[in-house]
């Protein structure tokens, strides 16, 4: 996957002073970054686990105390949590699928560009650079019945209240996500395409393969590692969806994602115990998704396939 192969220098000789100095320097140079990363991720997640087994409500500080797994029970038996998991999964699956198709199309045309490749690259980088909140406001105002131009378009009912319904709200949210992140997918796939040997296509053409066959038999299999890495990053990123929903609906019409749910518990209601249980459960879900992807990634590795056959 994205791990960069580490160059192994053969050092059979016993550790000399120079090797020791090199080790010491290496660890010293890494220490600040490692400490910073541990301080803001590992320590807080352990702290979240500790908070999640207590009743900690900043509005009623005197009622604090150990409650065991009661917070988890409360979260896992609430419809709100499962609605959030469903919404988040739906947004992630639908937006990543659309992005995959659009991004693949974008990468293929940029790879085979006759002219104007720079123009397309510039254009696709614009959504990447735009702040997510700004993009969310732009789409929100476009669809909002009181200010938006969308309801003025032909074939769209003039009084359609896009943010008044569950499905229409989610559709606009997904559209904003797709607009913002398709460029990232397209660029990763384009980089993957660049690594494919052109000679393979020439050979296939000589053998009479159609463009469609060349895509399915050459491009897709060879692109698989880059494809899976792009999918992993985008799926986990989509699973964190927060900004667009916060701006467009704040979770109204049952459009809460798990991140919005966590925010509401932690910051709006100041219920750190219950909110931390939500945080820990989101963390576990992300771990599960990453684990599944890494397993698929591992089996798609040509080396491990060779071992099986």
């Amino acid at each position: 996957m994205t791990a960069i192969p580490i160059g192994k220098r053969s050092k059979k000789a016993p550790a000399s002073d120079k090797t020791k100095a090199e080790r010491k320097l290496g660890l010293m140079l890494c220490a600040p970054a490692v400490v910073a990363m541990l301080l803001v991720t590992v320590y807080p997640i352990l702290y979240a686990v500790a908070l999640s087994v207590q009743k900690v409500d900043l509005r009623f500080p005197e009622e604090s105390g150990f409650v065991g797994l009661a917070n988890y029970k409360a979260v896992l038996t609430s419809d709100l949590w499962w609605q959030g998991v469903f919404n988040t999964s739906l947004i992630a699956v639908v937006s990543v699928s659309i992005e995959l198709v659009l991004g693949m199309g974008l990468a293929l045309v940029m790879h085979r560009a006759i002219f104007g490749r720079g123009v397309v690259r510039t254009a696709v980088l614009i959504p990447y650079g735009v702040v997510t909140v700004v993009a969310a406001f732009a789409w929100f105002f476009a669809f909002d019945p009181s200010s938006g131009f969308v309801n003025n378009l032909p074939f769209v009912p003039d009084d359609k209240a896009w943010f008044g319904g569950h499905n229409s709200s989610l559709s606009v949210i997904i559209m904003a996500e797709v607009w913002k992140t398709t460029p990232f997918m397209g660029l990763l796939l384009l980089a993957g395409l660049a690594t494919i040997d052109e000679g393979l296509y020439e050979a296939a053409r000589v053998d009479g393969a159609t463009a469609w066959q060349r895509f399915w038999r050459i491009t897709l299999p060879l692109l698989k590692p880059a494809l899976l890495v792009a999918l992993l990053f985008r799926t986990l990123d989509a699973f964190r969806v927060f900004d667009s929903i916060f701006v467009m609906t704040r979770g109204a019409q049952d459009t809460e994602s798990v991140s919005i749910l966590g925010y509401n518990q932690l910051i709006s209601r100041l219920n750190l115990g219950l909110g931390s249980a939500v945080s820990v459960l989101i963390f576990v879900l992300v771990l599960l998704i990453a684990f599944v992807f890494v397993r698929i990634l591992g089996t798609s590795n040509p080396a491990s396939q060779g071992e099986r056959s």
Partner: protein
Amino acid sequence: MNRAPRDYLKWTVGIIVVVFIAVLPLVWIFSLSLKTPATVSDKSFFPKEFTLDNYSTLFQGGFDSPLLRPLINSVSIALIATVIAVTLASFTAYAIARLDFPGKSAILAGALAIAMFPQISVVGPLFDMWRALHLYDTYPGLIIPYLTFSLPLAIYILVAFFREIPWELEQAAQVDGATPWQAFSKVILPLAAPGVFTAAILVFIFAWNDFIFAITLTSSDASRTVPAALAFFQGDSQFTAPTGNIAAAAVLVTIPIIIFVLIFQRRIVAGLTAGAVKG
């Protein structure tokens, strides 16, 4: 190779469609920002009456204005986080790319894990910790999470770039009597500048874009950044929605980043794809 005119036509249409979709929301929010309060709800794509009032009211009242403080906060916080993150990442990437020591793969794997970490999972604990440490609603309170969450990206980009640097030059310097530290600062660092710059651009964009930490770890204009300020804009009165003002502020924060992206597009593409396709 001979291309049929039809290919050119198809390709031209393709380019136009991609550019149209990419800029549509920006043209729309720009046009919205120029509409007068009377026409802001007219639902037309282009403004019928023009005004710049939406922009000027954003800065009325100097430091107490709706946008000036958040803008200063956004720029300062993103810049400081970028400098620190890129410095720390350079040390780490140099060590990983060039030195032999135990734990290298663990560091890279850990960085990858953090790149996928759900931010909401640490928001609650950080909120509580920052209040105890008096970091809540301060610059460092945002700088610390920004630099941490951008370190993995910076480390991966820099390791990929550092591996391309000719290794012999450093050895040559050491043969000439330079210490490992001198070899790093005098020989490798100048060669690494393009990679460092690429990492810096992407870290800056990350910090500039963040919303979730900005709304959870701040409570006032003392440290609130523009994305958070946008979400809390109030209208002139409780009966007027601040649509025009939000649109104007959105345009103002978008222009610099668009210029940035256009100038450095090659570096951004190189940085985004570094590491992801290797291995």
